[in-house]
C-alpha cells in the first residue's frame, strides 16, 4: 500500500511529542517516583536513608500473599467466564446483530456503565437481604436471609467476579464478532460442504479464526481485573483485600512510615501488569506473523 509512509522521523516525532511527553512524564515519572519512595526516600517525612526494607516487609507479609492469591483468583475466574460467555454470545449473535439494532445496543450497554454503579447494583441484587435472596425466600427455597450464600463481602470474591464478567463479556464478544464478520461465511460454507457438522465448524473453523484477536483481548481482560479497585472496595472483604485496595490502605495508613510499603506494593503491581503488556504484545506479534507467513 502506498499510504504507509516510511519517512524521516522528524514529522511523526513532532506529531507524537506532546502526547508522549505527557504520558512519559506521568507514567515513567510515576514509576520512578514510586521506586524512590519505596526505597524509603521521603524527605517530606524526614526519611532520607535508602533501603530495601519495604520490599521485604511487603513480600513476606501474610496480607500480601493472601491479597495476591485473591487477586489472581478473581482475575482468573472472571477471565474464564468472560471469554466463555463472550464467545458463546458472539456465536449466537453473529447472524442477528446485523438485523437487530436493539439487541446490539443492549449488548454494548455494560461497556459504558461505570464499575461503581455495577458494584452497587450487584450488592443490591446478591447480598443476603438482596433481591435474589428475597425471590428465593418467596419461592420457599430458603427459610431466612442467612441461608442465602454469602456472595458479597465473601473471601472468594464471587460478586466481584460477576461484576467484571458482566462488564467485559461484550468486550470479548465484540472482538470475536468483528472477526466473524470480517471473515464472512466463506470458510464456514466450505467446511459445511465438506460435511463438517455445526459443532465441528465452530470448533475447527470459527474459534481458531477468532484466536488472534481473542487471545490479546483475554490478556487485557485479565489485566483490568488485576487492577480492580472500586469494585472490591464496595463488594470485597477487609481481609484479604485485592492488591490495589491493599496498596491504597497502606498509602492512607495513619502510620506514615508505611508509605514505602505502599510504593513497593505499587511497583509489584506495575511489574506484574508490565509482564502482561509484554505477553499481549508477544501474542499479537506471534499471531500476525502466523497470519502473514
Amino acid at each position, binding site marked *: 500500500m502506498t499510504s504507509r509512509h516510511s519517512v524521516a522521523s522528524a514529522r511523526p516525532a513532532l506529531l507524537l511529542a*506532546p502526547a508522549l511527553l505527557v504520558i512519559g512524564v*506521568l*507514567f515513567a*515519572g510515576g514509576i520512578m517516583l514510586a521506586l524512590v519512595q519505596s526505597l524509603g526516600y521521603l524527605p517530606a517525612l524526614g526519611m532520607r536513608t535508602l533501603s530495601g526494607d519495604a520490599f521485604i516487609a511487603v513480600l513476606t507479609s501474610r496480607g500480601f500473599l493472601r491479597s495476591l492469591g485473591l487477586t489472581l483468583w478473581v482475575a482468573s475466574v472472571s477471565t474464564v467466564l468472560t471469554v466463555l460467555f463472550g464467545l458463546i454470545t458472539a456465536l449466537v449473535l453473529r447472524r442477528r446483530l446485523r438485523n437487530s439494532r436493539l439487541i446490539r445496543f443492549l449488548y454494548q450497554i455494560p461497556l*459504558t456503565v*461505570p464499575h461503581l454503579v455495577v458494584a452497587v447494583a450487584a450488592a443490591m441484587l446478591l447480598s443476603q437481604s438482596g433481591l435474589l435472596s428475597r425471590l428465593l425466600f418467596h419461592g420457599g427455597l430458603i427459610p431466612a436471609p442467612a441461608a442465602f450464600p454469602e456472595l458479597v463481602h465473601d473471601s472468594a470474591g464471587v460478586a466481584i467476579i460477576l461484576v467484571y464478567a458482566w462488564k467485559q463479556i461484550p468486550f470479548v464478544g465484540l472482538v470475536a464478532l468483528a472477526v466473524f464478520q470480517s471473515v464472512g461465511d466463506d470458510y464456514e460454507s466450505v467446511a459445511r460442504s465438506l460435511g463438517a457438522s455445526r459443532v465441528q465448524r465452530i470448533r475447527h473453523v470459527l474459534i481458531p479464526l477468532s484466536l488472534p484477536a481473542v487471545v490479546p483481548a483475554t490478556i487485557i481482560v485479565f489485566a483490568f481485573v488485576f487492577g480492580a479497585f472500586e469494585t472490591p472496595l464496595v463488594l470485597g472483604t477487609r481481609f484479604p483485600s485485592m492488591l490495589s485496595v491493599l496498596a491504597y490502605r497502606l498509602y492512607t495508613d495513619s502510620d506514615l512510615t508505611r508509605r514505602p510499603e505502599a510504593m513497593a506494593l505499587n511497583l509489584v503491581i*506495575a511489574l506484574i*501488569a508490565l509482564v502482561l503488556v509484554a505477553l499481549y504484545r508477544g501474542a499479537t506479534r506471534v499471531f500476525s506473523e502466523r497470519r502473514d507467513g
Partner: protein
Amino acid sequence: MDEWRAPRDRIRAMHTVVIAGIVIAVLLPAIPLVIWSLSGGWWFPRLLPEQWSLRSWRYLASPASRVAEATRNSVIIALATTAVSVPLGVPAGRALGLYRFRGKRFAEALVFAPLIVPALAVIMGVQVVLIRAGISATLGGVVVAHLLPALPYMVMVMRAVFSAYDPEYEQQARSLGASRWETLLHVTVPAVLPGVVTGALFVFLISWSQYALTLLVGGGRIITLPVLLFAFVTAGDHAMTGAVSLLFLAPALLILVVSARMLGGRSAGVSGLEGV
C-alpha cells in the same frame, strides 16, 4: 418428531435462551437501582417497598445533597480531560497510524502500557509531586491524574482511525491547488471526524467514571458524582445510592446512543480498547 429437524429446532431454542439471557442479564442490575431510588422503606423479605417515596429524588435536587456541586465538578473535570486529550491524541494517533519511523515500537509501548498498568499504582507515585506543586486536592490536579488513563486511550483510538485512512487524498487536494489549511479542513477533518468524536466521547466517559484517581488526588475535598455515590454507599442509604447511581449512569447510556449513531451501527468502544 422428524429426525433431521430435531437438532435444528434445538439450536434455535438454544439461541433464544442465549438472547433472552443477554437481555435479562443486561437489564437486571437496573431493577434494584430504580426500585430503591423510589422506596420509602423496603425491608426483607418484601419484593416491593412497603412504602414508595420520592424522597431521594427530591433530596437529589436540593442544594443540601451536594449533587449539583458533584455534577458540576464531574462535568468540568471530564470536559477538561477531553479538551487536553483530543488535541494531543489526534496528531499522535496520526503518527502511529500512518507512518513507519524509528522508535515506533517504543512509542507504541509507552502509549499502550498505561492502558494496562493500573493508573492508581502509578499516580500514587506522582502524588508527592502534585502535593509539592500545590495542585493536589484541586480540580487541575485531578485532571492531570485523569490524563493517564484518558490520553493513551485517545491515541489508540486515533491510531486505529488513521490506519484505515488514506493520505493520498490529501496529496491529491494539494496537487489540485488546495492550501494546507483547506486540505485539513475539507479533506482530513471530514474523514476522521466520526472517529475523533467517538474517541472524545469515550475519553469523557473514562474521566466521568473515574473514582480511584479522584479519591487519591482529590483527597476527599474534590466531590464528584462517584465520590458522592460512594459516600451514600458507605452511609448505607440505599434510596440515595439508587438515585445517584441512575444519575451517574445516564451520560454513559447517552454516549453509547450517540456513538452508535456516529459509527453507523459498527461497535463503539472497542476501536482502541475497552478502556472504561
